[in-house]
Structures are given as C-alpha cells and as structure tokens.
C-alpha cells in the first residue's frame, strides 16, 4: 500500500469512527434520560421529534448557543486547555479498539479498527492515567471552591482506582499472553471467554471502571447535591459539552474493553448466509457493549452515592488486595499447568 493510500484510508476510517462515536454518545445520553425516567416513574424527553428522538440535536443547538462564561480570576490558558485535554484523551483510546475481524470493503482489505498496535491495552491504560489531568486542571483553574474540592476528590479517586483497574487486567493478559486487543479476542475462541476463569478480575475491573469514569455510585467529583457540579461547575456552553462528551466516550471505551477482554469481543456462533456471517461478529460486539452501557444506566438509577471515606477505604483495602490476590492465584495456576 502506498503512503498516500494509507493516509487516505486512515483519514476515512477516523471520520467514520468519529461520526459513529458522536452519534452513539448523543443517543446513549437520550437512552439514559429515557431509562432513568422510566425507573423513576417518569417518561423522559418526548417532545422533540417522534418519541423525543431529536432531543440530542436540540441539546447540541443549546450547547452551541449558550453563553461561554469564563469566571473572574480563572487561569485562562488552563481553563481552556482542560476540556480539550479531556476530549482528546477520551478519543485517543478509541483508536485501538477493534470492533470485528478483517473485512473486504470496496476492494480494500482492512481491519475494523483504526490501528492494531502490539500494546493496545497499555495505550488504553496510559490514556486513562492521563485522564486525571482534565479533571484536576479544570477544577484548579476555575478559581472556585467547589470546583477545587471536586477536582481534588476526582484526582485522588482516579489515581486510587487506576491501580485496581490495571491489576484486574493482568489476569486476562497472562491467560492470553499478549497485550494486543485483537490477539486477546483471538485467544478467546470457542467460548473460552476470560470471564469464566477471571470472574473475580471481571468484577474488580467493572467496579474500578465505574470509578474511573466518575459515574454513580462513584460520582463524588461531581456530586451535584454537595458540590454544585464539582470540577465543571464553572464551565458552560461547548466547554461543558466537551466534558460531557469525554465522560460518555470514556464510558464507551471502558465498556468496549470489558467486552474485548472478558466477554470474547466479537466471538459468537456464526450461521446463515454469507452476508449474515459477515455482520454477525460486529453485531455480537455491539450487543455486548450495549449490555455494559445499559448496566451503567441501570446502576445510576439504582444505587446511592458512596461516602468519601468509604470510597477510599473500599478502593485501597478491598479492591487492591483482592486484585493482587487474583494476580497471584492466576499466575500460580498458569505456572502449575
């Protein structure tokens, strides 16, 4: 493949992924409002378009038209940088996520993935660990007590749970013997899903992932009842929308990783005519990811928020030791085999 063709192909793939991602974020958010509404005996948004399906478009217009406020005494440069950082980092981790096997499309043989690097999982961990900056800088540069408190909470929470997140992934990495996400899915052929031997790791990952994305029951950084909205209290218009976007893209990434690492990615029974066999893997992948996204919404509608000291002691005294024990037991089993 020539360099030009490579660049062109990459550009097209990036645009397609970006389009799908933004649409997905818009409709996950609508689904969240609808489902949480039902759980609270309301109906959620119904007015804009049939069944409220155009609500995301109305929200987008609102975000663009709102006044863009910068508080007095804010550190202007960092205040602008923080939301950009959050969005860029969130989008960066999507690049290594494969959504299916190899395909032949319009005569081009390509993988359903932006780039397949050998250490894909490490890239995702690296980007997650950088994600703290968005939260911390936003809160600090806003020149507001609530923002600062929110970002301090957010920062310490994300640092604490990052550890268990990484440790929980070590089990599957050892079982698969690779850090490549594609390789990891290939290792789970014939229903050898890693959730079965790694059930402990799976739940540790899930808990840590909820904390990393600042979602209920770990949404202390934004805790609307006590901090206003935490680190993004002072943000409005598109800058706020960027934080919003980053949070939902992070949710999607985390769900994708859970699917790829523990639920066998796009693996599943293949049957039927050729066209069905071609789209089934991606369909399986989407179904599994949707399950995790529904779980996010379900938990939001069900659980109350943690207290801050509970959050910290749970992270350090329960999750980390459990994850370490899981790593030790797994390596012992692999060594004895």
């Amino acid at each position: 493949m020539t360099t030009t063709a490579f660049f062109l192909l990459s550009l097209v793939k990036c645009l397609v992924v970006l389009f799908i991602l933004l649409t997905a974020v818009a409709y996950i958010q609508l689904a969240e409002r609808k489902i949480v509404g039902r759980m609270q005996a309301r109906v959620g948004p119904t007015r804009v378009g049939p069944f409220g399906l155009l609500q995301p478009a109305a929200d987008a217009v609102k975000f663009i038209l709102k006044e863009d406020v910068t508080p007095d005494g804010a550190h202007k440069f960092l205040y602008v940088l923080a939301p950009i950082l959050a969005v860029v980092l969130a989008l960066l981790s999507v690049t290594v996520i494969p959504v299916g096997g190899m395909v032949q499309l319009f005569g081009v043989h390509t993988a359903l993935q932006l780039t397949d690097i050998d250490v894909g999982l490490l890239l995702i961990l690296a980007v997650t660990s950088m994600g703290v900056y968005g939260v911390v800088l936003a809160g600090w540069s806003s020149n507001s007590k609530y923002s600062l408190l929110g970002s301090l909470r957010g920062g310490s929470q994300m640092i604490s749970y990052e550890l268990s997140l990484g440790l929980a992934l070590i089990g599957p990495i050892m079982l698969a013997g690779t850090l490549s996400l594609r390789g990891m899915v290939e290792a789970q052929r014939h229903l050898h899903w890693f959730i079965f031997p790694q059930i402990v790791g799976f739940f540790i990952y899930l808990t840590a992932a909820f904390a990393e994305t600042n979602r209920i029951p770990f949404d202390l950084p934004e805790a609307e009842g006590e901090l206003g909205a935490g680190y993004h209290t002072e943000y409005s218009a598109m800058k706020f929308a960027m934080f919003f976007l980053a949070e939902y893209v992070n949710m999607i990434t985390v769900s994708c990783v859970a699917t790829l690492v523990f639920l066998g990615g796009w693996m599943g029974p293949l049957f039927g005519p050729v066209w069905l066999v071609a789209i089934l893997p991606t369909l399986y992948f989407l179904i599994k990811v949707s399950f995790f996204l529904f779980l996010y919404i379900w938990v939001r509608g069900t659980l109350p928020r943690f207290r801050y000291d509970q959050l910290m002691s749970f992270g350090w005294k329960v999750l980390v030791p459990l994850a370490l024990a899981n790593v030790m037991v797994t390596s012992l089993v692999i060594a004895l085999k």
Partner: protein
Amino acid sequence: MQLTLFLIFGALAVAGAINLLVQRHPIYSALSLVTVMGALAVEYLLLGAEFIAFVQIIVYAGAIMVLFVFVIMVLNAGEVIDQPRSRIAAFLGLPILTLLAIELISRVYGDFGATTLTMGSPMVQTGPIGQSLFHEFLLPFEVTSVLFLVGVLGAVVLAARREKPQVVAATRQQHDQEKAMAAAQR
C-alpha cells in the same frame, strides 16, 4: 518522515524543558515536565520501543507528575517571588554546562557503544523485555522493589505520626468539664 517527526518531538522536549525553568508558576512548570515526558515517549515510539514508550507515559506522566500537580494544588502554591541569584549556581553552573556540552559533542561525533538504535527499526516485542527483566536482571529488579517498599514504609510512618495521647485526653477532660459547668449553670 520518521526523521522529521523525531526532530519535531525532540524540539518539543527541549522547548518543554526550557519552559519548565522559565515559568514562574509551579503548575505551569509541572505541566511543561509532562510535555517533556510525552515528547520523550513519542521518541521511544519512533525508535521502535513501544513498551517503553507507553510505560513512560503511565509511570511518569500518569502517576508521578499527577502527584506533583496534586501537591501543588493542595498546597495552593502561588507564583514564585524573585529571589537573589545564588552565588554557588554561578560558580558551578557554567563549568558543569561546559562539561556536559563537551560530553555531548564527543558522543555525537564519537562511538555510541555496541548497540545503536535506528529510526524505523522493527518494534521490540514486549515478551523479550519481560524475559530479560525476570531472568537476567532479576536481582536488580527485586532490589529496586525492596527500595520502593522502604520508601512506602517511610511515608506511612511519617504520615501516621499522631498527637500524643495525653494531649488528646487532656483536651477531652477539659471539654467534659466545660459541659458539666454549662449543665450546672442551667
């Protein structure tokens, strides 16, 4: 193209390092250091060391520098006020700088040693790194981890030092007395 990228990110690393020294506010200095780490990671990547590149980001940019930024935020450190220039720095700085420059130039024009990395070399697999780390260099690796453990223990000891129990008891007694007096007055 790889050489161009290498030069761009090399320049970025140097610019970040200079900015680190020039900035007056500690948080901007810390962020410049993050930029340096990120640029270095890209250089590693260009030299085919994928694993090192991402570990560089996870450890330095994602863990150590986050703690730095955090501490600066918690202490709410402001801008550094101008201080009289240190005499020692003036005496030591220039000779050391000259020495470093000589060393660097001799390296560039001399021999880099047995192994040289070339641009666009094939990516180093993660497996061999683990092999050499846990076979050849097992002892240094373990010794380093013990060093870290000592550091953690030291931090815990420092952080767990509480006020003397007598003081706490005395305060409580006083508190009780005040309560009793208030009750008696009523």
